[in-house]
């Protein structure tokens, strides 16, 4: 059995609070295996950045679970998430904030 590199199960994310609350992601299931190129496309405001932030272990989902190389990110401490990011994830940011 091939373990997915990235797996999301029933992931939802609610941003904001009160009247300004927005449900950015709703019940996302995703499984990405190694050696494939996967493109995430969608109109502006569809939740691409939110989903990538969650899959990149920078943002915690409101509901659901994320697994990176078989490691569950749910309940992990910030330092453990940093280790997962360092060991398993490479992220090219839109703005690469380099020290000048």
């Amino acid at each position, binding site marked *: 059995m091939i373990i997915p590199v990235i797996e999301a199960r029933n992931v939802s994310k609610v941003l904001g609070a009160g009247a300004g609350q927005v449900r950015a992601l709703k019940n996302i299931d995703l499984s990405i295996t190694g050696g494939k190129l996967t493109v995430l496309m969608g109109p502006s405001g569809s939740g691409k950045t939110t989903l990538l932030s969650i899959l990149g272990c*920078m943002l915690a989902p409101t509901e659901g679970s994320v697994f990176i190389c078989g490691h569950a990110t749910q309940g992990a401490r910030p330092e453990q998430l*940093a280790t*997962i990011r*360092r060991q398993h994830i490479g992220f090219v*940011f839109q*703005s690469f*904030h380099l*020290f000048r």
Partner: protein
Amino acid sequence: MIGSDLDAQALVPWNLVDSNVDALRANNAVAVDRSYFGDLGVTGVGSTAQIRGQPATVAAVTEGIRSFTTTPYVFADLAHARAYIGLPPTKFNHFIVRLRPGAEISSVQHDMQAAAPDADVLTPAQFRERSRSFWLFGTGAGAALFAGALLGVIVGTVIVAQTLYSSTKDHLYEFATLRAIGCSNRYIYRVIIWQALLNAVIGFALATAIGYVVVAVTAKSALSIVITPALIGGLFALTIVMCVGSAVTAIIRVVRIDPVMVMSR
């Protein structure tokens, strides 16, 4: 006024730069330090002045014999010194006792104390410690000194803390990026503490240079500033501790950064 028995190998003025000790045998002869010429109104050997209404002639000049207070030391032959300050031959303020080679200092001290229970019999180290304690803790000078030093430590710490904090705040996105790519807290602490250490070393180098100038300028004055290697080492250690302590606020700010903020711009 320091009176010396010139025939008894007693304490005599040292660092003579003009004339010699034997010149003090002359009537009304005194020795003064060059740094006090202005205060005493004299210009060198041969100058005359008055001590408690009695004439005095500068017969020898020293260099570097300075008092911690504003009043200078004046050396004279013992008999002349007694006459200047009106002290009868049976009275004295201080005795300097020189031991024979091999004498046990504590034993002599004990015997002298037993013979003169009302007097203080002190070894050089005890006398030095008593003087230091008096000026540091028995007068306002010590309190002012400590208060000034404490204020310096507090102000220095706050300034470095503000500098590091504002520098960290200016680079929040960079630190967020570091966190987003998985840098550990320990690594980020190291970055900030390294900045604090740079502050410490550069600041201390500047302060040391200024200190050397102050030492050089005051070397010939009545109140010279002395900075020993041990003091420099101690201050460097204090500076390091201050600067690393100052990094705490910046570190607290950085560990609160949410890495997802790198996605927001």
